[in-house]
Each structure stands twice: as structure tokens, then as C-alpha cells.
């Protein structure tokens, strides 16, 4: 019976998402597009942080790498959009970074793991920042064209068309991630989160499982990166920065770590707050910082669990 409520809610939300473009002004359609992209990003981190128990402040490494690869292909190699190649290359590059990082990051305990991953991720930022000839340095790479889908009568320059384009990927991503966390593989990740020693005693190769979780998580983060760079038409080192990684983490915690859907809600809340607060004051960073602290102190279990608790009453 509980499952049915979940399904109903999901269908209702889906219906709402479908009618966003006709009902809301273009500006808001664009905003919801951004929310969907960050929702994918946050959910991908949840697989790592909420389900496997690996707290990461380096998630932007995956998103940013994918974003840069797409940008470089788009602007420098193809000099125009080439969707399939860009999408695959973007996601693969994110997975590649995960495969490399995973080799030396996963041998360490929690605090060390966090620091090494943070540092490694920022190193990528440093490379993007300094390597002007390839990445445009801190000016970034502008002029990234959205994919040409005129063959199926879609003009992605149009906000509405682009919205549905992103919505499709959002649905694919959320369904796949949902399957992952409900699968046996996802199950073992939760076991690792709860007790690594027990998992080892039961016969699980926990290093390997964590490594795979790392890569799976990076694939979806990479997808978010590809979509984000099409959305912005532009990439800059901020896509690789600690600030973005921290945002992903707060989205996960605020939404509800380990709930998968919670982080999507967290993404919505943070994106909306950032957007509206920055419209009112140039000191929105103070507000954001306060939200980070308030979330941890007041609502560490996250919004999703709070809602579920309220629904039980």
C-alpha cells in the first residue's frame, strides 16, 4: 500500500513536470531545466554518499570533466554540435576520471578519503584554470552549440524544446538510478555503508564494490555535466570547483541522504534559493552558508524523510 502512494506521487509529479513549459513563463521553464540537471547530479552523489557511505567533496570532477570534453569537442574539434559523440565522450570521460581516482582514493579511511578526493578534484580545476590553450583558462569556453535535432523536428535553441530534451534524460537517469539502488548491487552498497567488516566477513570484495559504485555514480554525474554545458552554452572552471561539489553535497543532505529522491528535492530547493536570493542581495553567499549550517544542525535527516514522517500522521 505504501508503494502505491509512492507511485501516485511520482505520476503526479511527472504530470506537473510535463506541463511546466505551457503553464509557466519561459524564465521558469529554464529554471526548472536547471533544477532537473542538478537533480541528476545530486542523485548521482547520493549513490556514493547516501547508499555506499562515501562522503565526497569531489563530485564536480565528474561533471566538470564531462562538461569540458563536450565543450572542447563542440568548439574546437567539430566546430559545431555532434551529439552522439559528445554525449558518449562526455560520460566516458567522467567514468575515466572515476576509474583513475578510484585507484588511489578508495584505500583510505573516511577523513583521508574525503581530503584526497577534494584535493584531486581541485587539481582538475587547477588544470582547467591554467591550461588556457586547451580550456580557455578562467575565461572558459563560450559558444557551445546545442545538439542539432532538426531531423526529429526539435530546435534545442528553443527553451521549451530543450526542456523536454532534458526532461527525457532526467527520466532515463532517475529510472536507471532507481533500478541501481533497488538491485542486488545497490543492496551490497548499503551493506558496505552499514558495516564494512561484516560485508568482508560475508565474503564481499568491498574495495571492488566501492570502486564500481564510484564509476556508476560518475556516469550519471557526467550526464549532468553534458546537459549543463548545453544549457549554459559555455563552460568555465567553476564546473570543476569545490564550491560545486559542496553544493551537490548539501543538496543530498538537505534532501535526504540515502533516499535517492530526496536529493532531487534538495537540488530544487538549493537552485531556487540561489536564484531568488541572488536577485535580492549580492550577499547571497552568506545566506547560502547559513543554510549549509542550518541544514546540518536543524534537519540532518533531510526534507524527504520529514515529509514521509508528516505523511504518516
Amino acid at each position, binding site marked *: 500500500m505504501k508503494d502505491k502512494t509512492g507511485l501516485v506521487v511520482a505520476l503526479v509529479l511527472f504530470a506537473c513536470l510535463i506541463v511546466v513549459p505551457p503553464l509557466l513563463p519561459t524564465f521558469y521553464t529554464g529554471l526548472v531545466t536547471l533544477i532537473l540537471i542538478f537533480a541528476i547530479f545530486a542523485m548521482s552523489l547520493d549513490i556514493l554518499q547516501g547508499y555506499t557511505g562515501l562522503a565526497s567533496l569531489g563530485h564536480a570532477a565528474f561533471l566538470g570533466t564531462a562538461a569540458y570534453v563536450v565543450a572542447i569537442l563542440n568548439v574546437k574539434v567539430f566546430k559545431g554540435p555532434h551529439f552522439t559523440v559528445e554525449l558518449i565522450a562526455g560520460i566516458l570521460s567522467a567514468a575515466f576520471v572515476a576509474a583513475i581516482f578510484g585507484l588511489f582514493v578508495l584505500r583510505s579511511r*573516511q*577523513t583521508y578519503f574525503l581530503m584526497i578526493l577534494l*584535493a584531486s578534484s581541485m587539481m582538475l580545476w587547477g588544470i582547467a584554470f591554467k*591550461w*588556457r*590553450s586547451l580550456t580557455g583558462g578562467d575565461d572558459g569556453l563560450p559558444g557551445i552549440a546545442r545538439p542539432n535535432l532538426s531531423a526529429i523536428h526539435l530546435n534545442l535553441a528553443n527553451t521549451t524544446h530543450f526542456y523536454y530534451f532534458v526532461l527525457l534524460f532526467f527520466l532515463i537517469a532517475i529510472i536507471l538510478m532507481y533500478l541501481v539502488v533497488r538491485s542486488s548491487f545497490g543492496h551490497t552498497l548499503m551493506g558496505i555503508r552499514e558495516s564494512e567488516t561484516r560485508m568482508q566477513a560475508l565474503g564481499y570484495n568491498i574495495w571492488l564494490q566501492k570502486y564500481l559504485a564510484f564509476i556508476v555514480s560518475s556516469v550519471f554525474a557526467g550526464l549532468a555535466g553534458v546537459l549543463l554545458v548545453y544549457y549554459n552554452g559555455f563552460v568555465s572552471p567553476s564546473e570543476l570547483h569545490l564550491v560545486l561539489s*559542496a553544493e551537490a553535497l548539501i543538496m543530498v543532505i538537505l534532501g535526504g541522504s540515502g533516499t535517492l529522491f530526496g536529493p532531487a528535492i534538495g537540488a530544487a530547493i538549493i537552485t531556487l534559493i540561489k536564484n531568488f536570493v541572488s536577485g535580492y542581495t549580492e550577499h547571497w*553567499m552568506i545566506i547560502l*552558508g547559513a543554510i549549509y549550517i542550518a541544514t546540518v544542525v536543524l534537519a*540532518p535527516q533531510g526534507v524527504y524523510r520529514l515529509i514521509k514522517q508528516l505523511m504518516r500522521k
Partner: protein
Amino acid sequence: MTFFITQAINGIVFGMLLFLLAAGMTLILGTMRIVNLAHGSFYLLGGYIGYSVAQYTQSFTLACLAAVAIAVLGIITYKTLFEKKFARETVAQVLITFGMLLIISDVCRWIWGGNPLAIPKPELLSGTLHLGDIVFPVYRLAVIVIGVLILAFLWWFQEKTKYGAIVRAGVDDEEMTQGIGINISLVKTLIFSLGALLAGFAGVIGGPFVGLSVGLDIEILLLAMVVVIIGGMGSLKGALVGALLIGLVDSFGKSLLPEISLFTIFAAMVIVLAIRPGGLFGVK
């Protein structure tokens, strides 16, 4: 040859600055396992406060006392958040201190503006030294001396005092230490505030040559972290070796291969981790 020596000394100077940050960070991590992402913010805020004090009083010495303000900030942070409530929760610590980073960064920009600032060197140390062909600012050499003095103090603290014994043992067990007559809670507070003090102080003495600018908090946090990773969590010796190493790599890297200077630091970190996953002198 001149080039080599100049860069080497620059590297050592910067390394000393990093040591002040990394030492605090590594001690805090080693004894309390607390990750403080606002450590770089302590540096920056200390520097900015020192700048204002120097502007107002024309005294560099008084500017150094800005570090005390940061120490107080450190004590408040520790007492309210990390002593009991989030003592062991890494994710909470990380998000709270990152929130602090955002707030402090914005407040600094609000008060001191977005343009880079520099603290004027004290008159006494503003000359230059001539060693053969090499011309070197006395101030930077003074920084090395100060660094060594602080290193000596920290070494004495860790090796010769009973408080240091706790640090060395990496112990934070209340019951165990109460039996030996040490107030572990006091020691932890002391260590956290010492870390903050050192960070703030580094910000002030770094003021004249590193300067104070937006984004420096994260830059310096990152470098300090890499030093701690390389040196090993909890190891003072590691912090020194790591700091000098990174200082030199940074100095030579920036002048020889500016496009990938951060990458060389990254490479250094990965190489060390490949050989010693716990850092060069990792306590465990």
C-alpha cells in the same frame, strides 16, 4: 644558479607559511579527526584583520595580534559545534565549515572589497640582503626564522610536555586520559584554538608577499590539505616535510611550467600516496 637559489628560497618561505597552516590542520585531524574547511578562511580573515589593524595603528606587531581574534573564533567554533555534537560526524563538519567558508568569504569581500590587498612590511624588516649576486628581501628571510621558531615551539610542545604526549599517542579517549591526570577536553580546545591561531597568524605574516585576495582562502586551504595528505595525518614532521616539498614544487613549478603548476603538485601527491597510502609519516 641565481635563479635556482632565488626560487629555492621563495619555495622555503612559502613552505614555512604552509607549515603554519598544515601543522594546525594535522594536529587537529590527528587528535580529533575534525575536518575544518574553514582553515583557509581563518588564514584570510586573520590577514584582513591584521591589514586593518596595521592601517589603523601603523604597527605590524599589533597587526599580528589579529591572530588572537582568529583563535577566539576557533574556540567558539569548537565549543559550540565540534566538542560534543558533531565530534565524529565528518559530513556535518565538512558542511558546517564550508558554510563558514562561504560566510567569511563574503564578509571579507563586503568589508575589504574585491581588490587584492597587501599588508605593508614592518620598517625594520623592509630592507634587502645581498648574498653575492642574489638580492633577497629581509622580510622573507624573517618569515623563515619565525617559521623555525614556531616549529621549535610545536616540537617542544609535542615531545616534551604531557599534553604533547596525548597528541603523539593520537589518543582522544576521555576515560583513559583522566586517569593520567590530564584534562583531555582542555587539550583538545587548546589544540583547535592553536590551529586557528597559527592560521590567522600565517595570514598576517603572509600579508606582505602573498597578499590578500578573493579566493585565497580556498587556494591556501587546498595547498595545506595536500601538505597534510603528503605528510601524513597527525604528523608534525610530515607537515614540515610536506610543506617544504610543496613550497618548492610550487615555486619551481610556477616559474618553469606555469601552465601545469598545480598538476605538478597533484603528481607529487599521487606519487607519495602510491608509495605510502598513509602519507610519508602517517601516524595511522
